[in-house]
């Protein structure tokens, strides 16, 4: 069984570490906030969510009576700020992002290449909405994780030898979590390594549905979600 959207988010949440500063993209990445795991002391891990419009320390959605139009996330949803949060300008926010002060970001993709390029902002000939903060995030964040469907609706692999769509960033993806498997960049070899497969999905199936060259060695464990 391929992983569901929620299971993708659960698997991505396993990459979190206590004290991490994290930026979550829109869609599946946003769901990761619902699955923050327990830390060593059994308490929920202390993870700080950054919103690129100028907040470090996103809290839960507000009660109806506490909705504030001046407090939104990058998806323009009304939110709250957690204890210890801070507000800052967009230039300070992207200084934080580009300057390597964010531990991890999770975002979606249209295509990922075998060398770790990502395309997720435009399809030529269609209405282009813009890249928002995606190019800055992939260029500056220490660990960049992609959550995506392994194949497009017509069954074509989205993990490809070279991206055909205009790039968001080059050689910047550290991990891909798809509905079929988990791929981790081997920075020495410059290719992704298959590290986990979804329950009921075989290594052969992953290989058959992946257009990119990937490293497959030894036994590959099943994703634990």
């Amino acid at each position: 069984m391929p992983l569901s959207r929620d299971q993708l988010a659960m698997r991505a949440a396993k990459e979190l570490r206590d004290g991490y500063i994290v930026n979550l993209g829109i869609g599946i990445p946003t769901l990761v906030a619902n699955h923050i795991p327990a830390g060593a002391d059994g308490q929920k891990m202390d993870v700080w969510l950054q919103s690129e419009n100028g907040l470090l320390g996103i809290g839960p959605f507000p009660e109806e009576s506490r909705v504030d139009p001046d407090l939104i996330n990058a998806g323009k949803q009304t939110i709250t700020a957690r204890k210890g949060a801070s507000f800052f300008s967009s230039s300070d926010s992207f200084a934080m992002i580009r300057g390597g002060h964010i531990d991890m970001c999770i975002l979606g993709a249209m295509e990922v290449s075998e060398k770790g390029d990502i395309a997720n902002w435009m399809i030529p000939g269609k209405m282009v909405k813009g890249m928002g903060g995606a190019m800055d995030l992939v260029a500056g964040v220490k660990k960049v994780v992609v959550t995506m469907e392994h194949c497009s609706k017509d069954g074509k692999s989205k993990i490809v030898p070279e991206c055909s769509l205009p790039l968001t960033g080059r050689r910047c993806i550290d991990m891909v979590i798809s509905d079929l498997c988990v791929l981790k960049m081997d920075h020495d070899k410059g290719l992704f390594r298959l590290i986990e497969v979804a329950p009921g999905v075989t290594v052969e199936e992953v290989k058959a549905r992946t257009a990119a060259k990937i490293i497959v060695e030894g036994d590959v464990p099943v994703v634990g979600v």
Partner: protein
Amino acid sequence: MRTKVVNSAVEALALAKARGVLKDGATVMVGGFGLCGIPEHLIVALRDSGVKRLTCISNNAGVDDFGLGLLLKTRQIAKMISSYVGENAEFERQFLSKELEIEFNPQGTLAERIRAGGAGIPAFYTATGAGTVIADDKETRAMLRPSEGIGGATIPGRGFGGRSGTAPQSGQPRDYVLETGLYADVALVKAWKADAFGNLVYRMTARNFNPMMATAASVVLAEVEEVVEVGTLDPDTVHTPGNYVDAVVKTTPEKRIEQKTVRK
């Protein structure tokens, strides 16, 4: 001390016109992220001023009937410099029919271009967009990360004396793109509180692009919710020092919410 507080948004725009900077073909910066922290009344007054062929520098383009969408409807904007414009049907129509020119900037590059312009820095290098269409026709140069060029030099071959990183990708030069600073004729910003000198304080995520824009235009007009006596703002909490601001207008904003989400 002469007060910078004016009676209406129209009066504020008139000041920019009187100084000769607000005219057809002008470049105008407009603060806000989505509909959060936008100068609502100044945008309406800009529309009503009748200026045409504007270049607007703003992260987003409003929605059809609010924010910069109002100036798109009246076709007063010739070009937008933005990072994301997803929420506007009229924008999409004008974009696809090529009636409107659009220059997409990565959001952090846009923010830094404005910051640089206001700080007197004509250009800077950033890793954002290197190797993508954003770098087309721009200079790209290989340098070490600042954190690896400890001691100053980040350009290989120019006396690099730093340590190499341990991660496989570290310690190697990477590509950086040369981006230019931005400066406008007029900036319209939204703050929470101001005093008569023009000191500004922003509120929560309504700050966004407003502080940089307040530094990067010939004439800076600020729309605020509260004007307080000079001396009552704690100097430690002032976000934009008053010397950047030319006029302040107090309004009662609608503050429309794009996506109301509440706890279940």
